[in-house]
């Protein structure tokens, strides 16, 4: 019987596993790929670790820090492992895995899901037209270019101005495509200014704001796309269609948490984040099942995700010890005015200490005021220099502020 099984060997899973193993628990880490590090192994640009280490590392370098920690802490790691099913028993979980060595049953007192997210595809955003070769998600292209040294095409178009799209644009430009174009529906790049400047503007890569791909053209291979301008609600403006010749389409149009597996276990899913609802220790609505990283919500910085894995590790520790008294009724945290989503969705414990609340703003605003309120009364206010929907915001609150309340709402004004 393991004390905890961590599913997923990306940064969040690695951090949770190493932290728990340091506390002398017996931990097993399961990873479906043949190496640890998750997506970071294909993110070869630097910029990771600035919050945690005050140093800018590349993806593989950042991953390596935690791979070493996992090694040092004595976590049992199983690579190439597919988790076929997980069953909840009275006081533990039964995990059925499939590997090249066989089919294995693992028992664990608790579970940490760190299985991340997947990329939204062309069908989910209803891009019309044909279904030829040459349409890829940005993550696939990043992997293709950085791990295999292959380009998706000679004249790609990138759809979406978020960070992944921006980073991929720079790689493609530097690594030898003939021409490149980026379109996105926002008024300006939704990725970090740093990436907009250093990936697109530095190299004068052409881009079109308020534009999206309406149709893909080409029977066997992408030959062109039909672009269309969109309004501020991203609705296509009829009559603005134009054909743009290209040989590949790269989609950077959002990430979706892999929440199906935890949902099957009975965890409540928050439609706003797409991930499981969690409490302040990242425990889902199923006792003993924790979830961390991009499965909970899409983090902008891996540093933040990893920090939250540390918090989750504390929660697992409490759970395993039977410590940490839970409230009879959790405090519900709800997104209010101009807030799209909020994590955690509930505060379940009585303990002392501060709580980190993440929220995604519903609008772009300078000098915004963020209120935490309950039953019409403002409990605490924060000033934020600059907020926008594509950037996740963080608040730190002492428990005392919201203790005893039934429901707490976060507003932005």
């Amino acid at each position, binding site marked *: 019987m393991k004390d905890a099984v961590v599913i997923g060997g990306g940064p969040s899973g690695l951090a949770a596993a190493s932290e728990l193993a340091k506390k002398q628990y017996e931990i097993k880490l399961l990873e479906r790929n043949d190496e640890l590090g998750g997506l970071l192994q294909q993110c*070869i640009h630097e910029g990771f670790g600035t919050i945690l280490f005050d140093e800018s590392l590349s993806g*593989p370098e950042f991953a390596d820090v935690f791979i070493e920690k996992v090694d040092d802490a004595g976590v049992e790691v199983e690579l190439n492992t597919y988790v076929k099913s997980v069953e909840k028993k009275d006081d533990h979980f039964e995990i059925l895995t499939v590997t090249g060595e066989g089919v294995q049953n693992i028992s664990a007192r608790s579970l940490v899901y760190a299985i991340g997210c997947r990329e939204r595809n062309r069908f989910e955003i209803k891009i019309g037209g044909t279904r030829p070769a040459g349409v890829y998600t940005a993550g696939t292209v990043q992997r293709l270019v950085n*791990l295999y040294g292959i380009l998706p095409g000679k004249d790609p178009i990138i759809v979406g101005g978020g960070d992944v799209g921006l980073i991929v644009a720079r790689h493609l430009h530097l690594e030898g495509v003939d021409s490149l174009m980026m379109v996105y529906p926002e008024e300006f790049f939704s990725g*970090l200014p*740093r990436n907009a400047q250093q990936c697109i503007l530095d190299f004068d890569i052409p881009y079109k704001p308020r534009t999206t791909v309406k149709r893909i053209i080409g029977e066997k291979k992408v030959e062109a796309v039909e672009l269309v301008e969109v309004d501020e609600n991203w609705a296509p403006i009829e009559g603005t269609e134009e054909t743009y010749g290209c040989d590949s389409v790269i989609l950077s149009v959002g990430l979706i948490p892999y929440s199906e597996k935890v949902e099957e276990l009975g965890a409540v899913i928050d439609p706003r984040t797409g991930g499981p609802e969690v409490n302040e220790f990242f425990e889902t609505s199923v006792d003993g099942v924790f979830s961390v990283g991009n499965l909970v919500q899409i983090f902008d910085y891996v540093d933040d995700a990893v920090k939250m894995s540390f918090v989750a590790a504390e929660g697992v520790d409490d759970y395993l010890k039977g410590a940490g008294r839970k409230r009879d009724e959790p405090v519900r945290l709800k997104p209010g005015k101009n807030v799209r989503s909020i994590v955690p969705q509930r505060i379940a414990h009585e303990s002392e200490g501060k709580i980190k609340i993440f929220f995604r703003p519903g609008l772009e605003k*300078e000098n915004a005021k963020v209120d935490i309120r309950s039953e019409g009364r403002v409990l605490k206010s924060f000033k934020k220099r600059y907020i926008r929907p594509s950037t996740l915001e963080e608040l730190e609150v002492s428990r005392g502020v919201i203790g005893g309340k039934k429901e707490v709402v976060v507003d932005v004004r």
Partner: protein
Amino acid sequence: MSDDVKEVLCVRCPKGCRLKLLLGEEVAVKGHECRLGEEYGKKEATDPERVVPSTVKIMDARWPRLPVRSERAVPLVKVEEVIEELRGLEVEAPVKKGDVIVENVAETSVDMIAERDMEREA
């Protein structure tokens, strides 16, 4: 003269102010809204630098490519030259994180280093 004006995005906070840099003996920054922006603008005007990430071909390893980067930032104008110098380069596994792959790349006095270990595989 328009040649003496450069536009950049400030990268110091999510707001991303659009800075106008008036180049000359004394650099003037416009469009910034805080001290950080001015500082950043001055640096960008006189001496913009970037860390360069790329990959090189690696033999006998799990992956066909090894990720590499410049150990420190190099002048922005040198970025494409750095990449050019990597063309056709081949290394052999095993490689350790931090190994120098190219010394003094494009005469920037910065080395290109391996971003990760790569074991030798048959």
